[in-house]
């Protein structure tokens, strides 16, 4: 280094930098995603329209004389959530890819896990808002008493949605640079989330059964919690590798 450069370096010794904590970085990303979505409403409107369309198609197909087959409501709820959730997952990362802002997120001095968790919280919050609309609609269209035990329903929906979104967020991130990502996302996602769908449907069946069996409901809830723990941990562990260019 020349004496001129040494002088410059001394003159402009840069102050120590404090990088944000994981929680602060996650909150920044979530708040940004909520603001972007509040402005564009792109994911919310498309997902809601698609989900309601799905429910109506199912209702026209299987409801006869105002009566749906027994046990249809909970299956249709989870199938609709899966289809609509896939749509939301694809758009979440597509939005970051369009302006290459994903690279800006990866260049920030925060753990890569913060990007994953920020996106995960964004997707889960969107799907939970969607479920607030879908659950009463399913109750109405398919005569499924989903709202009879609201705390249990909330627990099953929350854990099931988290498991679905945990796998889905990682899958969408893996495919963000793939040319056929829209086609590949369901192909990659659905086989892995089959346990979530089974546990979600069976757990929901258990809580709306005329004779409520808390032990059965707890079993399916525990299965969902175990799935969540395994896949969130796995995603946090692998996200850095998935994002490597």
């Amino acid at each position, binding site marked *: 280094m020349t004496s001129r450069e040494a002088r410059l370096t001394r003159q402009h010794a840069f102050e120590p930098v*404090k990088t944000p904590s994981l929680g*602060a970085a996650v909150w920044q990303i979530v708040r940004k995603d909520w603001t972007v979505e509040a402005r564009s409403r792109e994911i919310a409107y498309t997902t809601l329209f698609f989900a309601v369309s799905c429910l109506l198609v199912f209702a026209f197909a299987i409801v006869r004389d105002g009566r749906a087959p027994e046990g249809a409501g909970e299956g249709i709820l989870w199938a609709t959530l899966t289809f609509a959730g896939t749509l939301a997952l694809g758009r979440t990362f597509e939005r970051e890819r369009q302006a290459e802002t994903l690279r800006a997120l990866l260049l920030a001095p925060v753990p890569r896990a913060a990007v994953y968790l920020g996106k995960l919280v964004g997707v889960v919050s969107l799907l939970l808002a969607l479920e607030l609309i879908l659950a009463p609609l399913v109750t109405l269209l398919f005569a499924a008493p989903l709202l009879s035990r609201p705390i249990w329903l909330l627990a099953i929906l929350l854990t099931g949605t988290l498991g679905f979104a945990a796998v889905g967020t990682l899958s969408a991130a893996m495919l963000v640079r793939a040319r056929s990502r829209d086609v590949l996302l369901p192909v990659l996602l659905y086989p892995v989330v089959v346990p979530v769908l089974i546990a979600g449907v069976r757990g929901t069946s258990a809580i709306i059964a005329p004779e409520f069996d808390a032990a059965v409901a707890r079993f399916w809830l525990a299965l969902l919690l175990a799935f969540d723990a395994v896949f969130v941990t796995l995603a946090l562990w692998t996200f850095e590798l998935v994002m490597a260019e």
Partner: protein
Amino acid sequence: MTPQSTAHVASQDFDVVTAREVSRAFGRRRALNKVSFSAAAGAIVGVLGPNGAGKSTLLGVLSTLLRPTSGSVSYGGADATPAALRSRIGVLGHDLFLYPELTARENLQFFAGLYGVADAAARVAAALQTAGLDARADDLTSAYSRGMRQRVALERALIHSPRLLLLDEPFTGLDDASAAALVERLRGLRTEGRIVILATHDLDLADGLLDQALFLRDGRVLHTATHPERLRATYQGVVGR
């Protein structure tokens, strides 16, 4: 609610960036081939070459976004984690890394938060003033011209006061006045002791600005010049097209 807690203090500053025999391959294609150079604080280094020469790949490696296939990059010998290093690096890409649904102020505030900038509101206000956009700070960036977005993007790259600034084609889409203002800004950054590395095709604007020029073709450094003059003639002589 805005959590203000901070987890890690990255105190390691650096005053020189050194690439040693850096190679980077994408599949069977080698984008960089044993590139070596050094850039010190208070210098502007130009990376010049035709399309596909490896300029953007070199910036990607220096930014820590791409890992070299072989060779290494050292940042003043500091034994820092990648996250700590990234807090000292600012990048202005060919894509501007701005959210079109956010205003200029919101974009800068978001990145200030991600970089843990202290007194972010004041820093953002100062950045908007420097960019000459304080009057339109609360407009969505999607309503800006390319030149205005470029100015916001430069302030975004500088919001955390990085030591190393990497610029990929920073003159693209700028009119003459904006390009001249950017040249003056880069000179100012040099006197602040930053290391500025820019990849550009615009030899006329780079002429007289650079302290060092790397001429790249097919991933190789063909020639290195210190305080280069008559850049276009040198470029044509070395790169040949």
